[in-house]
């Protein structure tokens, strides 16, 4: 029997309205990026989900595991559905300001993510681009604060400069929470799926080997800034000599700037196949392989474009110190390498050389 046109239209309208509307409270999405879900048994899935829920709660009711230095009050203000009270205290800040791009799990795959370039940050592997810390270290709270207040120019990441301080603090707390949760989740998945760990899981073991190291990596940079913060020497004058020297260093073979940014800093280097750490695994050796791999990821593969300095759009900030940090330690999670000295070894550039390169890069932008 054929369905009458009116009835079909009614069902289409109903389906349209009900799109994605589930009455059940939102839950965190398991990080299955790059994995075939069918390879994970139901028991394994439940063990991971149960352990994570026991440790971190849910998006509506987050909890802080013992030994993790996060503020529950701030966390609760950021979590849950969007609401506010008679005194104007906001709740659900993450859902109001961040979830459309970063997703409920902080996986950088929120509803709008696929239409954005670059994709929003996936917090779950604990890698952040705009930091003032040495390579491999977590960003400080100030770094996250700076990114939130300044935004990321040339991308969809807004500046939250109009938000009150306490709301910014809440969002920073929630980003750290999602990141620690995400790193613990990755540890759990490795343990349960890759190493086929015996179930049920020993939660103390998960705490000691996965959760606490992730949490401590955040605390460490705050507790020992002398060791983890980049300490640039005083900036030399940005005169013609410094710019000229910077140009020579920029063009030198060791610095490798030309490879991606090109001889004139137009972002037209010979290396065009550049991918960040979130997209690199999506790239197969052949186009067919890349196509097959696409089914294992939420977002399609996205290429990086090397910065064209002449545009003057610097995503991590355009001040000399911002650029110094980018050249010194690189951009974590991207092919932009560290040029400065690190871990007792000399880099390809000395701290003073880095300042000269910064002056050259800024001069390209100022020329326009």
């Amino acid at each position, binding site marked *: 029997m054929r369905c009458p046109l009116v009835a079909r239209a009614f069902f289409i309208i109903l389906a349209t309205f009900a*799109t994605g509307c589930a009455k059940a409270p939102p839950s965190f999405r398991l990080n299955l990026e790059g994995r075939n879900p069918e390879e994970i048994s139901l028991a394994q899935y439940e063990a991971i989900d149960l352990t994570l829920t026991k440790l971190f709660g849910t998006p509506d009711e987050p909890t802080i595991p013992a030994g993790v230095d996060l503020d529950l009050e701030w966390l609760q203000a950021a979590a849950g559905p969007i609401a506010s009270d008679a005194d104007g205290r906001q709740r659900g800040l993450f859902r109001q300001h961040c979830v459309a791009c970063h997703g409920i799990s902080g996986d950088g795959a929120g509803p*709008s993510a696929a239409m954005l370039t670059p994709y929003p940050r996936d917090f779950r592997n604990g890698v952040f681009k705009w930091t003032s810390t040495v390579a491999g270290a977590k960003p400080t709270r100030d770094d996250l604060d700076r990114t939130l207040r300044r935004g990321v120019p040339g991308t969809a990441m807004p500046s939250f400069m109009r*938000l009150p301080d306490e709301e910014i603090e809440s969002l920073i707390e929630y980003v750290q929470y999602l990141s620690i949760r995400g790193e613990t989740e990755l540890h759990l998945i490795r343990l349960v799926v890759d190493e086929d760990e015996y179930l049920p899981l020993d939660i103390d073991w998960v705490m000691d080997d996965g959760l606490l190291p992730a949490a401590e990596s955040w605390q460490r940079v705050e507790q020992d800034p002398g060791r983890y913060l980049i300490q640039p020497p005083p900036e030399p004058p940005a005169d013609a000599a410094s710019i000229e020297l910077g140009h020579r260093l920029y063009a030198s073979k060791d610095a490798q700037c030309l490879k991606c940014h090109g001889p004139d800093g137009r972002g037209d280097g010979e290396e065009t196949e550049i991918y960040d750490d979130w997209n690199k695994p999506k790239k197969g050796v052949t186009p067919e392989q890349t196509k097959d791999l696409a089914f294992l990821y939420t977002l399609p593969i996205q290429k990086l474009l090397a910065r064209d300095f002449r545009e003057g759009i610097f995503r991590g900030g355009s001040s000399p110190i911002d650029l110094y940090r980018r050249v010194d330690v690189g951009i974590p999670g991207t092919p932009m390498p560290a040029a400065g000295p690190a871990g007792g070894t000399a880099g390809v550039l000395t701290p003073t050389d880095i300042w000269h390169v910064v002056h050259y890069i800024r001069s390209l932008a100022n020329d326009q």
Partner: protein
Amino acid sequence: MTNDKLPHYLAWALAVGTFPLIWMGGLVTTYGAGMAVPDWPNTYGYNLFLYPLESWLGVWDVFLEHSHRLIGATVGMIAIALAVFLWRKDSRRWMRWMGVMALAGVCLQGTLGGLRVIGDDLLLAKIHGCTAPVFFGLAAALVAWTSPAWLQASPRPNAAARRLLWLAIGLTLGIYLQIVLGAQLRHLPPEADVFWFQLWVWLHLIVAGLVLIAVTWMSVFARRRLRESPQLARRAQLLLVLFLLQLFLGAATWVTNFGWPAWFTTYLWPIDYTVIAESRLQVLSTTAHVAVGSLCLIAALSLMLWSKRLLLTTKPSDNHPPRPRT
């Protein structure tokens, strides 16, 4: 029918009151203030009209949500008065029922808004956002139906009437579809898959393109074929202007919320622009896009109603004398 102008004035008051109601509702969604007052029909336990002034004006989100409710209540009272006057004074039976429908509409809309708050329900918020322009359309239609011009109009035959009417109907439906698609984007659940956002954005763009073609065609068509009905030609021009403004606001909404698209900054013009959350520009463009969308709807609806009222459809045979037999 009646020559009493009061229902007409009341219909105007209803339509004019509904427009700020849509603005305020748009602002509530833009600021995420829908749950700033968690109870309904009371406001933090107070009767709607007795909520203390200092509490109402003291907190921005509460101000938005409570103001939305107060304007809604005012529109409701106007709807009651209009329904009563139409029932008592208007001799057109269908018109009396239209007054009742307006009253039922405002009650339904208020209840939807209330249930959205009580249940903190995103689906109801979406439906509430989609039914508001329908009510606005009904209020605008009441303005037309109660106007002296409508009552005294004498339809003229026009060969293009049928085509114009169908185009106006298509435009009204197309613009409403745009509103529904926009509501999908505004009220997307936090867990929604990336597929849905892309689907709604592309559909929103495709339908916008189709409506733009239709509106432009309508404007040209009205200019050429409706010289004897300047009221209709004016409405067609107004619709074109409003829709062009709406396209501009749509683009502004995207840019102020997501920044300039990468293809634009990479290949056309590298603009150093940073999105600022809750900036005046973002809030105004986003909310104006919602409000002007409703204005486009009633402009198309008005064109549809008046073309039906002012023009008589003629069969091709009425205009062309039969060909002589050879």
